[in-house]
């Protein structure tokens, strides 16, 4: 089936970047269609928000058979349990291929709003050093843009999503447009004081998060209930459902269709441009062509790559916009899982009020100046961490016995524990890649196969992440320190990058400095797939800023020329 209307733009995906593309493009006056493969959901329709534990089935104990059959990957994701099950991908219905010895966690949602519903909300700007890193040390290709190109777009995004945080005035973590910061608790404050005294140049600050501490438009400030991932009717954290999609809808220019999984983009070979998006209805299996002037791929890193790789034609036998042969290559995640935990004595009379949806953050302190640190790896890492007293779920077995005394003992919280985990930059390697497998999914689309491993630089950095966490815990007076030295398997941080990397040279990269495919100028890739390196800070803010920036460019070209596209190069 073909839809009669030609849209100005089709945006694939309704999550963090799809919502931004929809908002910006509709506000520029374009008629926009957003296609989302997941279930429909509107803001406020969050079935488990504020539901107490006694109303959850089996009190939220794991549903073993269901998880084993249908959620065997997703069950390992942060925030996955029965309170969020309805948002996650069904692994049995939507499979991908893992190669022996190269496991990869592809954590996906299956709902309008995507992972913006359950993201970690930490929002950090890249620094000048991050954009220059590839060019400086020769790993990966040099970014065609620098901090100054993105800085105004960071501001644009921060003002709209609302980021609470503390300005530090340090180059490695540029300040932004902040709402008042949340606060450290008393144990974290002591940790901060002791660490900063012992390690000059290291900073412990409250996380910069897209959780409001002041109302913003119709969105209310945080009420500190805790489990953001269930959804927030108050709109106190940023999601596309609470923020960008409603803004897009207010323009009258938005059409959003759920249950539409995009198979491929249709190329007009003669003009070298995409003219339609092919999608399948996940319920009826009906196929539809949506005609459009422009496509924004915002389906999430790997889903966007799958669409490009599966858009094969005579002109592009190895996937759309792949004259360079780099499509699917140089994919990255964050090196995550290493760190340490310890007991913080001396705060037994202290507790907390309210569930702060935030952690502390320690910005990168390694390799800020070339040759200054005596470490055996390049680039760096930051930490997120928090202090919390053990609750009954942790102390129930440490307290012996049973009966009235046991019950009385469990009334008190346990020891204050301080945890910290690193997020490290992963280098771009050509052979860390995704490709199409010969196996197909239920729609006949070739499954994505992951071939991603960490190397020596990640291993050595990970060891330092654990060692420095131990050193800071020791400096803070922690006892019973437990190191975490093993990285999680790739994908676990859900910080996905690369595969359609940005670069100046069409021979070695997929998109240009405007996120526009070198080879197919009316296709823009603005989710994590466009990234040429990973830095070590949480990625979503940068994805949003690049999306808004690309949308402005696309809209201005459409306005000025009525179409987007220069004569395509020939192979």
């Amino acid at each position, binding site marked *: 089936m073909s839809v009669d209307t030609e849209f100005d733009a089709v945006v694939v995906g309704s999550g963090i970047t799809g919502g931004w593309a929809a908002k910006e493009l509709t506000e520029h006056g374009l008629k926009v269609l957003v296609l989302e493969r997941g279930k429909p959901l509107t803001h*406020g329709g969050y079935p488990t928000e504020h539901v107490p534990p*006694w*109303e959850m089935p089996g009190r939220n104990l794991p549903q073993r058979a269901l998880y084993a059959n249908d959620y065997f990957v997703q069950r390992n994701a942060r925030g996955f349990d029965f309170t969020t099950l309805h948002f996650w991908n069904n692994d049995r219905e939507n499979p991908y291929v893992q190669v022996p010895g190269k496991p990869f966690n592809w954590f996906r949602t299956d709902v309008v709003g995507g992972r913006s519903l359950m993201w970690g909300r930490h929002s950090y700007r890249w620094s000048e050093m991050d954009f220059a890193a590839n060019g400086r040390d020769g790993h990966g290709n040099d970014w065609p843009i620098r901090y100054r190109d993105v800085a105004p777009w960071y501001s644009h995004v921060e003002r709209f999503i609302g980021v609470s945080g503390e300005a530090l005035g340090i180059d490695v973590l540029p300040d932004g447009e902040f709402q008042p910061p949340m606060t450290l608790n*008393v144990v974290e404050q002591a940790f901060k004081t002791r660490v900063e005294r012992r390690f000059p140049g290291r900073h412990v600050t409250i996380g910069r998060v897209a959780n409001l501490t002041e109302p913003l438009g119709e969105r209310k400030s945080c009420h500190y209930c805790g489990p953001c991932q269930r959804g927030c009717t108050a709109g106190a954290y940023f999601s596309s459902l609470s923020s960008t999609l409603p803004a897009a809808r207010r323009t009258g220019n938005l059409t959003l269709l759920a249950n539409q999984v995009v198979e491929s983009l249709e190329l007009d070979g003669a003009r070298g441009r995409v003219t339609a998006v092919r999608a399948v209805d996940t*319920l009826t299996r009906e196929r539809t062509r949506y005609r459009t002037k422009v496509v924004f791929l915002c389906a999430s890193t790997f889903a966007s790559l799958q669409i490009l790789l599966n858009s094969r034609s005579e002109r592009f036998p190895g996937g759309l916009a792949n004259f360079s042969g780099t499509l699917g290559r140089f994919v990255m995640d964050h090196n995550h899982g290493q760190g340490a935990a310890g007991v913080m004595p001396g705060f037994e009379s202290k507790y907390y009020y*309210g*569930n702060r949806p935030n952690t502390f953050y320690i910005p990168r302190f390694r390799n800020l100046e070339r040759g200054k640190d005596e470490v055996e790896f390049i680039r760096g890492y930051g930490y997120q961490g928090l202090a919390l007293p053990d609750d009954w779920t942790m102390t129930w077995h440490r307290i012996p016995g049973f009966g009235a005394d046991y019950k*009385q003992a469990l009334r008190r919280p346990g020891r204050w524990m301080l945890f910290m985990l690193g997020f490290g930059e992963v280098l771009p390697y050509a052979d860390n890649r995704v490709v199409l497998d010969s196996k197909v999914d239920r729609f006949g689309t070739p499954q994505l196969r992951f071939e991603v491993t960490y190397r020596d630089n990640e291993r050595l950095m990970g060891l330092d992440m654990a060692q420095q966490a131990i050193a800071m815990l020791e400096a803070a007076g922690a006892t019973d320190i437990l190191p975490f030295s093993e990285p999680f398997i790739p994908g676990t941080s859900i910080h996905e990058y690369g595969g359609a990397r940005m670069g100046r040279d069409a021979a070695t990269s997929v998109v240009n400095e405007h996120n526009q495919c070198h080879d197919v100028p009316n296709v823009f890739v603005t989710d994590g797939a466009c990234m040429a390196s990973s830095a070590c800070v949480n990625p979503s803010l940068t994805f949003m800023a690049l999306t808004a920036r690309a949308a402005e460019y696309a809209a201005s070209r459409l306005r000025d020329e009525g179409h987007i596209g220069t004569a395509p190069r020939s192979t």
Partner: protein
Amino acid sequence: MNRREALLQLVGAAGSSLTCPWIDAALAGAPMHEAPAQSQLTAAQRAMVTELAELVIPRTDTPGAIDAGVPQFIDHIVSDWYTQGERAIFLAGLSELEVYSQKQYGRGFIECSHAERNAALERAEVQAGSYRPTPGVGILASLDEHSPFFFKLKQLTVVGYYTSQVGATEELAYNPVPGRFDGDYDFAEIGRQWSS
């Protein structure tokens, strides 16, 4: 939008591809927890579970395990959720308590005095010996299939009690919408853990 509408929207839109027992149960208006579909315990075993749960978390100045419906929760988990292996360990533990009571006190566990039942359960704890659950793993994240009877009983009672309405709101402090954050709060001001 109320919760039912939200659920309908999710389920209705996704049709049969989204089968989720909890949402199905919620839409059917069925109770979303507690009573087992078909109890795998005998009446005598249920009676023992009731007494044992109350031994672990008795009524004090706040309600106890029986008040909180913990015996029904344990029946539900043992009958509907446990693997065969877990159920075998649990049922063997009940049998052993019964056999011990007969041998030691000349009557069944249920007929024993409170002090005798207490002593029998203390013996079960000693028998569990040096077993310790995996450190750093919360009780709700996973239950160890191979843990000994005493830990199974204690664990199910604790989960059932502190996630029940009376356990969460009367024994512990429940505040689903705190409205503010104070990270330098004296424990004495509240005097009990948060359950929320």
